[in-house]
C-alpha cells in the first residue's frame, strides 16, 4: 500500500487525502483499465479486496502496485467488506468503486470539489455512464436517471428530505461520516441504507456530474432479472421497500419504457433493423424486471429452493442475516449479534394525511385562542346580534343537533343574523357539499334560512361564536373577529369515552374560559363545580304540536323501553334486566322495545318496533301504560316527550332528573338496580290511581317546557357571554 503525501487541510478541516477501495471477484475484464484510471487521477492509496478470484484479478492488482487484501468468499458481504476496506485505509476521503467501474478524466477533482460545497458533506456520488457495448435500455436508463439529479448539470447538495440514493458502484465518503454511520451489515443495498442513515443523522451528500465512471451492466436477460431479484430483496431488507405489482400497470409500464427506448435509439442514430431487434429484448427486459423486482421484494414468501434459483448470488435466506442499526455492531461483532434478537424489516409507510386530525387542537394549545374583537358598549342588549354556530358532523335523528336547530331557528326568526359552520376534523362529512348540508339540516331538524359553511375559509366574524360540542370548541377558539364566545353544552361529553385522547380533549373544552349554556341545571352545576366554568342553564323544550295527549285509548298492560344499545350511557343491559324481572313477576305485561334497528337479545319475549318517527313515537306514548328511559349522564328529551303525551315514565334517580323535576315530581325515579326499576314500573301498572296522577302531573309540568322558552334561556346565556366582555362603567368616587 502506498501512502498519500501529506496535504494541507481544506476549508472544512479535511486534509484531502484519498483512498480507494475496490472489492473484486473475477474482475479481470476491467480491473487493469480501472487501476490505470486511478493512477491517472492521482490516487495514491488503493486497496483491492479480493474474495476468491479464480481469474487474473490478483495478478493484475499486484502488478499495478496496489495493496491487495484477500478474504474468503464466504466472508464477503457488501456492507461488512466495505467497512473492512475503510478500516484498512487511511485517507480522509474513502472512495468505493466496483470492479467494472472505470473513472473518467476529472473524477477525483470532482469529488474533491463536492466535499468543498458544504461543511456537512458526508458522501458524494457521480453518474454511471454506459460503455460502448451497453444495451440501449440500460444506457438510456442510466443517462436519464442520473440526469434527473442535476438537471442543470451542476453539482447538487442533498439533505434530509431529498432522495437518499447512494451507490457504491461509484461513491466517496468523508471518513468522519463513515466512522459515525458505518455500513450496515446487510447482504445488499448497504449504500442505500447508508444514504438514508446519514441524511437522518444530519449529514448531507452531493451528486457531482463530473465524478463519472464508465460502468457496464452487461448481464444477459436471465442474469439481469436474477440480479433485480437480489437487489429488491436487499432493498426490502435495508429500507423496507416493497415493490408494488399490478398486471395492467406493468403492461402500461413496458409499453411506455419500450417507446422511450425506441425514441432514444433513434436519437442515437441506430438503424431500423437494429431498433426492431432491440425492441423484443426491451420488452423482455422491462417486463422481467418488474416481475423479478416484485418477487425480490417478497422473497420471504417464495419457497426456499425457488428463492435460491432466482438469486444470482444463490442466496436462499428469506431476509438479510443481520439487521444492525446504523453505527451499531461492527463487522467483527458477529457472535454478539447472533445472540441478539433480529428486528423484522420495517415497512415503509407513505404519508397518508395532509395533517393530523387534531392539529387544530394542538395549534390552540401551542398558540392560544385568537384575540377577541374589541367590545362595544351596549352590545349585549342590541336587539339583533350576529350569531355564528359551529356544529359537529351529524346524521338524521341526532338529538343534540335537533336541540341546537330548534333553538337556532327560533333565534333566527327573532331577527338575529345567523350562520352555521361545520367543524369536521375527521372528514365524516367530506362528501357532503354545503348546499346539501343546509338542505339536510332543514329536512332532519328545523327550518333554517341562513347559510351553512363547511370549514372556515369564509369566516366573517360574529358578535357571538357558539361552540356546540367538544369537537367544535378548539376550531371555534381559532376564529378571529368575535366579540364573545359561548359554548352550548348538551351533555357532559367526557363521559361518552373511556380513558382516551377524546376524553381528555372533551374535558379540556370546559377549561377554555368559555361561557357555557348548559342543557340542565345539573349540567350547569357540574361545569361550575368540576371545571370552574361560568355557566347558565336552559331547559330542553318539547314540540307541543307532536307530543301531546292524543285521542287514543291508553292500554293497561304495556311497558315501552327506549333500548338504544348503541349508546352506552343508556345503560341498556340494566334496563333489559329490569324488564326481565318485570316479566318474571308479571308474564302478562306486554313489553315493547324501540330506538334501535336490530332486535336485541333479551331474557324475555318482547315486540321490536325499531326506529320510529316523531309522530309514531307520539302515538306509541299515547297508548302505552308506562315508559322506561335511562340516562347515565344528562337528562334527555325523551322522558319529557313521554310525559307530554301523558305517559308515566321511570328514570334513574341520583343523576340529573332531580334537577329538573325535583325529588317528588311527575317522574318516577329509581336507583340503577334492576329490581328497583322493576318495582317502579310494576307500581305504575298495578296502581291505576298513581298512574293517572302521574299522567296528569306530567302533562301539566311539561306544558311550560317549550322550545320558545328554551330559546329565551339560551339567548339570555349568549347575551351574558357578551355582557361579561363589556367595559364596566367607571364608578364615581
Amino acid at each position, binding site marked *: 500500500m502506498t501512502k498519500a503525501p501529506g496535504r494541507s487541510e481544506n476549508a472544512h478541516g479535511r486534509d484531502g487525502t484519498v483512498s480507494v477501495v475496490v472489492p473484486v471477484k473475477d474482475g479481470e475484464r476491467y480491473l487493469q483499465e480501472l487501476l490505470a484510471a486511478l493512477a491517472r487521477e492521482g490516487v495514491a492509496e488503493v486497496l483491492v479486496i479480493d474474495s476468491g478470484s479464480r481469474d487474473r484479478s490478483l495478478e493484475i492488482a499486484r502488478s499495478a502496485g496496489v495493496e491487495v487484501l484477500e478474504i474468503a468468499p464466504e466472508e464477503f458481504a457488501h456492507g461488512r467488506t466495505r467497512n473492512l476496506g475503510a478500516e484498512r485505509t487511511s485517507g480522509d476521503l474513502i472512495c468505493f468503486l466496483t470492479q467494472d467501474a472505470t473513472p473518467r478524466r476529472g473524477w477525483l477533482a470532482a469529488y474533491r470539489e463536492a466535499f468543498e460545497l458544504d461543511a456537512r458533506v458526508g458522501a458524494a456520488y457521480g453518474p454511471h455512464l454506459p460503455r460502448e457495448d451497453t444495451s440501449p435500455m440500460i444506457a438510456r436508463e442510466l443517462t436519464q436517471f442520473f440526469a434527473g439529479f442535476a438537471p442543470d448539470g451542476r453539482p447538487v447538495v442533498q439533505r434530509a428530505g431529498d432522495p437518499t440514493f447512494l451507490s457504491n458502484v461509484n461513491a466517496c465518503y468523508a471518513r468522519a461520516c463513515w466512522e459515525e454511520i458505518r455500513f450496515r451489515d446487510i447482504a445488499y443495498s448497504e449504500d442505500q441504507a447508508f444514504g438514508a442513515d446519514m441524511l437522518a443523522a444530519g449529514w448531507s451528500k452531493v451528486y457531482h456530474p463530473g465524478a463519472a465512471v464508465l460502468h457496464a451492466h452487461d448481464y444477459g436477460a436471465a442474469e439481469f432479472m436474477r440480479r433485480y431479484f437480489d437487489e429488491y430483496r436487499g432493498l426490502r431488507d435495508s429500507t423496507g421497500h416493497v415493490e408494488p405489482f399490478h398486471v395492467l400497470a406493468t403492461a402500461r409500464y413496458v409499453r411506455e419504457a419500450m417507446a422511450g427506448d425506441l425514441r432514444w435509439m433513434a436519437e442515437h442514430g441506430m438503424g431500423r433493423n437494429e431498433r426492431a431487434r432491440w425492441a423484443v429484448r426491451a420488452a423482455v427486459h422491462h417486463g422481467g424486471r418488474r416481475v423479478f423486482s416484485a418477487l425480490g421484494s417478497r422473497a420471504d414468501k417464495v419457497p426456499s429452493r425457488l428463492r435460491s434459483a432466482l438469486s444470482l448470488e444463490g442466496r436462499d435466506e428469506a431476509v438479510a442475516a443481520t439487521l444492525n442499526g446504523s453505527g451499531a455492531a461492527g463487522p467483527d461483532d458477529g457472535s454478539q449479534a447472533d445472540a441478539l434478537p433480529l428486528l423484522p424489516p420495517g415497512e415503509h409507510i407513505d404519508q397518508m394525511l395532509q395533517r393530523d386530525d387534531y392539529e387544530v387542537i394542538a395549534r390552540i394549545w401551542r398558540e392560544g385562542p385568537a384575540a377577541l374583537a374589541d367590545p362595544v358598549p351596549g352590545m349585549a342588549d*342590541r336587539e*339583533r346580534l*350576529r350569531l355564528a354556530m359551529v356544529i359537529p358532523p351529524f346524521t338524521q335523528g341526532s338529538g343534540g343537533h335537533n336541540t341546537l336547530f330548534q333553538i337556532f331557528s327560533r333565534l333566527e326568526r327573532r331577527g338575529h*343574523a345567523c350562520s352555521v359552520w361545520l367543524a369536521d376534523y375527521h372528514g365524516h362529512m367530506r362528501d357532503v357539499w354545503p348546499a346539501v348540508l*343546509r338542505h339536510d339540516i332543514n329536512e332532519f331538524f328545523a327550518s333554517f334560512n341562513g347559510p*351553512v359553511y363547511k370549514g372556515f375559509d369564509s369566516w366573517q366574524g360574529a358578535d357571538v361564536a357558539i361552540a356546540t360540542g367538544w369537537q367544535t370548541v378548539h376550531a371555534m377558539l381559532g376564529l378571529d373577529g368575535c366579540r364573545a364566545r359561548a359554548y352550548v353544552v348538551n351533555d357532559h361529553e367526557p363521559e361518552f369515552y373511556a380513558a382516551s385522547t377524546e376524553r381528555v380533549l372533551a374535558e379540556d373544552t370546559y377549561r377554555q374560559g368559555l361561557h357555557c349554556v348548559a342543557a340542565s341545571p345539573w349540567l350547569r352545576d357540574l361545569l361550575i363545580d368540576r371545571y370552574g366554568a361560568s355557566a347558565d342553564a336552559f331547559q330542553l323544550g318539547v314540540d307541543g304540536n307532536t307530543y301531546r295527549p292524543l285521542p287514543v285509548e291508553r292500554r293497561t298492560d304495556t311497558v315501552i323501553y327506549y333500548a338504544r344499545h348503541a349508546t352506552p350511557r343508556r345503560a341498556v343491559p340494566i334496563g333489559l334486566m329490569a324488564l326481565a324481572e318485570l316479566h318474571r313477576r308479571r308474564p302478562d305485561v306486554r313489553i315493547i322495545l324501540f330506538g334501535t334497528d336490530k332486535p336485541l337479545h333479551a331474557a324475555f319475549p318482547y315486540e321490536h318496533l325499531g326506529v320510529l318517527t316523531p309522530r309514531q313515537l307520539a302515538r306509541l306514548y299515547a297508548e302505552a301504560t308506562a315508559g322506561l328511559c335511562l340516562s347515565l349522564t344528562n337528562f334527555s328529551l325523551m322522558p319529557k316527550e313521554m310525559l307530554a303525551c301523558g305517559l308515566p315514565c321511570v328514570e334513574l334517580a341520583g343523576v340529573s332528573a332531580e334537577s329538573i323535576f325535583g325529588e317528588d315530581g311527575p317522574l318516577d325515579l329509581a336507583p340503577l338496580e334492576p329490581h328497583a326499576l322493576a318495582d317502579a314500573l310494576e307500581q305504575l301498572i298495578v296502581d291505576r290511581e298513581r298512574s293517572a296522577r302521574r299522567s296528569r302531573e306530567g302533562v301539566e309540568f311539561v306544558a311550560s317546557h317549550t322550545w320558545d322558552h328554551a330559546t329565551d334561556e339560551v339567548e339570555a346565556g349568549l347575551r351574558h357571554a357578551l355582557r361579561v366582555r363589556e367595559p364596566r362603567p367607571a364608578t364615581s368616587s
Partner: protein
Amino acid sequence: MDATHVEQGKTDSDSELERLRAQVATLEAELVEVQARANAAVAEWQDRAYWLDRLHVDLNALMRRPGANQLRLALKAARAVWWRLKQVKRHLFGP
C-alpha cells in the same frame, strides 16, 4: 373657571358621549343588517346549488375542461338553428 362653566362643560361632554353612543348603535345595526343580507344571499345561492352539490358537480371546473366551451357554443348554435326552423315552420304552416 367657575362652577357654571364646569357644569356647562360636563353637559357638553355628556351630550357628545350620547351622540357617539347613538352613532355606534346605528353602525352596529347597519353591520347586522349587512350581515343578514349577505347571509340571505349565500343561503339563496345554496338553495339554487342544491342539486349541483348533491351530484358533486362543479360547473366552473367542468367548463374549464378542454372542449367544454366549444361544446356549449355548438349546442347554442344547434338550438338557434332548431328555433329558426320552428319559426319558419310556424310561418309556413301556422302555429
